Structure formats: structure tokens, C-alpha cells
């Protein structure tokens, strides 16, 4: 979505971006601590490392996707097709595994499918730059899930969990820490470093801030967009491998709604959908805020729908925060 005045998270112009970011992360850390304190008070079972990690694993598949989604939002784009992509990649993994008997070929198929789907999004969007990413990825999301439906029909593809090491990709642990968590930490650090410490990262910020200006400054805008969309596809394929290890059986309704989950995580983390704003640290903290809040509320058996109301309210409250803060400041000034 294009940046237009009045459509950014904060209207505050006088403040430097760094200032805002520092404060945003500070707020997130506070909420994170608040959520944890609340969970500990609510349930005596919360502070059990084994169960805690079991439940962290549950949202890590979505968290994997949130990482490249942060890049996409940073560019001022959006990708609504990640759910369909994970579904199709997982389907291909299962189908290829069952046809050839080789899980390696299955994994290769999943990664290839994911990358291809991502590249297709990128190709359409960079060849037809006047198209809004929202509508294109909305359509490809339907197509990817539809293809999975076509391949699987009313059945499922299963049997992957019979291979021990593959099963352990999701369930295996070092001590109490699951492999998946370690991989997530590594990925998050890599994604964070690329975003904040490389030329590529700075170029992404530049594009998100002002596409035209970036192009005039010699940034290859379309090439970078293409790379990021393809990368997102690859990560979807990667995530689908772990998803398969978890489920061991794939139907065409898996990974429904992953796109909005991943976007919510990034937005709560301070990455504006208008582009050019936010940090990876914020996104990672937000992933755990949403995940752990869900877990804590699940432990006291609130219904899924009530949890949704609370998450929605939290999201709105957090994005409203800068405006409220500004209003209070202005009122104080006026009083003086």
C-alpha cells in the first residue's frame, strides 16, 4: 500500500524516527513483562519449562513466516498468500514423499514449491507495478489453496511422521529446548542483521520510506521487491516442513488464516504496513507477546473467540498509543 499522509501509524512528524522506535520497543518490553506476570498469576502451571516450550512450538511455524513478512511490510507491500503457500508446499511434501518414498525429495519439493509461489507473486507485482499487492496475493492465495484442494481432493496425505528424524524436527529437543526454537533464534538473528546492518536492509527502508526517491537514488526497487517476495516464498516452504513434521498429515484446510496472524505479529511489533518503519527486535517481541498471551489465556480456558477479542483490543490499544500520548502532551502544553 502506498504511503500517503495521514495513513501512517503516527502522525507525529517532529520526533525523530529513532526516538520513536526506542520508545516503541520499550512499550513492547513492558507489555511482554506484563503478559508474563499476568500468566504467572493466573495459572500455577505457566512456569513449567517443558510445557512452556511445547506451547511455544505451536506458534513458531507462524513466527517463521512473520520474519520475512516484516521485510514485505517494510517495503510497503503486503502478502496475503502465505497461508495458501504453506498449504500447497506441505501438500507437495506429502505427495512427493508418498510417491517416491524419500523424505529428502519431499522436503526439496516443499522448498521448491514455496519459492516458486513466492517468485510468482514477485513476478506479477514487479511486471505490473500498478497492481496493488493486496489484490494480487489475495488471488494467488485462493489459487495456491485451490491447487492443494485439487491435488488432495477430499482426502489427506499422511505417513510423514513414521520417519523418526523428520518427526523430531518438530518434537525433538536439546534438554527442554526444542530444535525448532533454536532454529527460530538463529533465523531471527540473521533476518535482524540483514535488516539493520546491511546495504540491502537500508535499501529496503529507503523503498518503504519513498519508492520514487529510492529509485532516483539508484536503488533497484523492483529487483529488491522480487527478492523479498521470493524469500518469503522460500520461508513458507521451510515453515511447511516443520508444519508437516507437526501434523504428519496434510489436508487442504491447513494453515488457514496464517497471513493475518503473521501480519498482526509484525504490526504489533511496530512495523507499519505503510512501509519504512519498525525493527526486527520489535517484531520478535511481538511474536512472543501474542503467542504467550494466547497460551496464558488458554491455560485459564477462555474460549478461542474471547481470546480473539482480547488480542484485537490489544492490537488497537497499542497502535493507538502514540496518538494518545501525543494528545496528552499537547493538552499539557496547552495547560501551561
Amino acid at each position: 500500500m502506498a504511503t500517503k499522509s495521514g495513513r501512517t501509524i503516527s502522525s507525529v512528524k517532529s520526533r525523530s524516527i529513532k526516538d520513536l522506535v526506542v520508545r516503541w520497543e520499550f512499550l513492547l518490553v513492558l507489555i511482554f513483562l506484563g503478559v508474563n506476570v499476568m500468566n504467572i498469576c493466573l495459572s500455577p502451571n505457566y512456569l513449567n519449562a517443558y510445557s512452556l516450550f511445547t506451547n511455544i512450538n505451536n506458534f513458531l511455524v507462524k513466527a517463521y513466516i512473520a520474519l520475512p513478512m516484516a521485510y514485505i511490510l517494510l517495503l510497503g507491500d503486503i502478502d496475503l498468500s502465505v497461508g495458501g503457500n504453506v498449504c500447497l508446499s506441505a501438500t507437495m511434501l506429502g505427495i512427493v514423499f508418498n510417491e517416491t518414498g524419500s523424505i529428502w525429495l519431499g522436503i526439496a519439493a516443499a522448498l521448491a514449491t514455496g519459492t516458486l509461489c513466492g517468485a510468482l507473486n514477485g513476478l506479477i507485482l514487479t511486471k505490473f507495478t500498478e497492481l496493488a499487492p493486496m489484490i494480487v496475493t489475495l488471488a494467488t492465495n485462493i489459487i495456491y489453496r485451490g491447487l492443494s484442494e485439487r491435488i488432495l481432493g477430499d482426502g489427506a496425505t499422511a505417513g510423514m511422521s513414521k520417519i523418526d528424524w523428520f518427526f523430531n524436527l518438530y518434537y525433538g529437543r536439546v534438554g527442554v529446548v526444542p530444535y525448532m526454537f533454536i532454529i527460530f533464534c538463529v533465523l531471527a538473528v540473521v533476518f535482524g542483521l540483514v535488516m539493520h546492518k546491511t546495504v540491502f536492509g537500508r535499501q529496503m527502508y529507503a523503498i518503504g520510506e519513498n519508492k520514487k526517491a529510492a529509485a532516483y537514488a539508484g536503488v533497484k526497487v523492483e529487483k529488491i521487491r522480487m527478492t523479498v517476495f521470493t524469500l518469503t516464498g522460500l520461508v513458507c516452504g521451510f515453515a511447511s516442513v516443520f508444519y508437516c513434521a507437526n501434523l504428519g498429515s496434510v489436508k487442504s484446510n491447513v494453515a488457514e488464516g496464517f497471513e493475518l496472524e503473521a501480519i498482526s505479529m509484525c504490526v504489533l511489533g511496530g512495523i507499519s504496513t505503510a512501509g519504512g518503519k519498525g525493527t526486527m527486535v520489535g517484531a520478535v517481541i511481538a511474536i512472543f507477546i501474542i503467542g504467550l498471551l494466547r497460551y496464558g489465556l488458554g491455560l485459564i480456558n477462555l474460549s478461542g473467540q474471547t481470546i480473539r477479542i482480547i488480542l484485537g483490543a490489544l492490537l488497537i490499544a497499542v497502535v493507538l498509543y502514540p496518538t494518545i500520548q501525543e494528545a496528552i502532551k499537547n493538552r499539557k502544553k496547552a495547560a501551561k
Partner: protein
Amino acid sequence: MTVKNNTLRKGGRLGELLRSRESSLLLVMVLLVAVIQWRSGGKFLSSTVISQLTQNYAYTMVLSFGMLLVLLIGGIDISIGATLALSGMSTSLLMRDGVITSPILAFGFSILVGLVCGIVIGAIVSKGKVIPIIATLGMQYIYRGLTYFVSNTQWVPSDKMLDGYKAFAQGNLLGINNLFWIVIVLFVVMLVFLKWTSFGRQIYAVGSNADAAKISGINIDRVKIIVYAINGAIAGLAGAMYTSMYATAQGNMANGAEMDVIAACVIGGVSLNGGQGSAFGVLLGAITIAIISKSLSLVGIDAFWQQALKGGIIALAVLINVIVQRNSAKKALEGREI
């Protein structure tokens, strides 16, 4: 010079008409209908199927008009499915409990609930300065959650609804279904509203260039709140249409309807960047989506292909639109060079 210009403009105007978004969409639609008519063995273009289509997709068309306004000011609303469910459900619950005793009251109440939902979103977007997609993503969770909350996950069955309410959706006037009359009336209102009222022009102004609009004295916040409020009220109206049509209120009703509606608007030539789009285009777009959804199973396409095909046709329609626009822009440029 003037003579030359005049002749040019004459040819240009016809060309303009042919090259407009609406006409390229009309072309796509005619092609689509022709293929469907052929593949379905001539069953598609019958009065029965067309009246079913207009009745069954009336609420999606109505929603598209609301979405048009929101897209015109450069916003978006992905919570309309949830708003529809909340207003339809609360109306049906009150009908079940005997509080609402007349169909008109039911429609009114449903619109009111939608209106309130819309105003809340408008306030968050304008006064709270939150990006529309985020605000409506959050409110979607809240409204959908509230729907389950107020209904206690129960359904409202048809025997608990007013007979007049249920009969309305099945009734006809001059051979046209009542629900489609709502679409027609709303279409005419939108047409007049956007073209000939100053507020309608303000909406375009805000969408094409918010800064310029502000300088010229338009109260942007006010425009935004009113637009989201109208959109919410329309979603509420659609909630009443939905529950009267299907004579049941379920917590998950119209889940994901917003995506079909946004697709309808974009196919109809509305720009997601704001400031561009017409009521006529949106009507055509919504009818195209309705035709796709309705006919895929009618033409005997394997049930498991339908989903992928639907996505493909949406993508194709959007792409064709862009290609036609590009060509016409190119031709326009060439014309100017001569």
C-alpha cells in the same frame, strides 16, 4: 487549430468510452458469460438462474458499494464480514426473544448496529491515526468475537424469526426480487451521491490528494468518519439481508466475505490507492464475482478445481484490466504526439 482539436476530441470521446475501465470490464463479463453459457449447455442464461444469482449475491453487491466509498478515500475495511455477522446476529437474537416485533424494526436495528461498528472504526482511523488495514484487522477480531459472545455460540433457527422478515427476502416487486431492489436503489443513490453532491466530490478529493483537500478546507477527519459510518451501516443492512435470506443466524456467517468484496471492487476498476472508481464499475465487478461463484459448479467443473479456478479468474480479470489500461494510455500518448 480549433477545428482540428474538435474533430480529435470527437473521435477521442468515442475512443475514451471504448477504452474506459467499465467497457473493458464489460467485455470481460460478456466473454465470461458466453463461455459459461456454452459450457453449461445453455442453462446459465435463464430467468431462474439469473434471479437466483441476484437474490443470493445481493448482500455481497450491497457490501461492495460501502467498500467503494472506503477505498475511494484511500482506506480499506476488512472487518465488514464480522460487522455483518454481529449486526445480523444481534438482530436475530432480539427477534427470537420477542423484542423486535416488525421486519422494518429489524432492518433498522441491524443498520444501527452496523452504523455504530462503522463509527468506532472511523474514529480509530481518523482521530486515532491508525492505518485502516490494521484498525479493521483488530476490529474484525473484536466484532467476530462479540458475535459469538452475544449468541453464546447458538444459532437462531428460522422458526424463531418473524414471518414477514423471512418473506421479504423471497418477495418480488415488478418481477424483481426485493433484495435486488435494495441493490438497485443503493446503486442509484451512490451514483447521484458521488457525482452530484459536494460531499461525494469531497470523498474523491480526500482520496486523490489528502494534503490538497485539507488546504482547500475539507475536514478530512469528518469525511473519514462519515465514510466508515456509511460503510458500517451498509454492512448492517447486509446483515439483515443475509439473515432474512437464509432464515438462520450463525456465528461464522459471512466469514471472509470482505475478500470477495474487495476483489469485486478492484475488478470494477477501483484503485486501492484511493481517489479512483465509480459506482457503475463496482456494480459490474460485483456481478462478475457473483457470476464466477455461481456458475463454476453449474458448468460441471470438478468440485476440487473450483477454488483454484476462481482465484485464477480474479487474477486474470485484474490483469486484463491493467493491460487494457496500459494500451489505452499508450495510445493516448501517441495521439498527443501527433
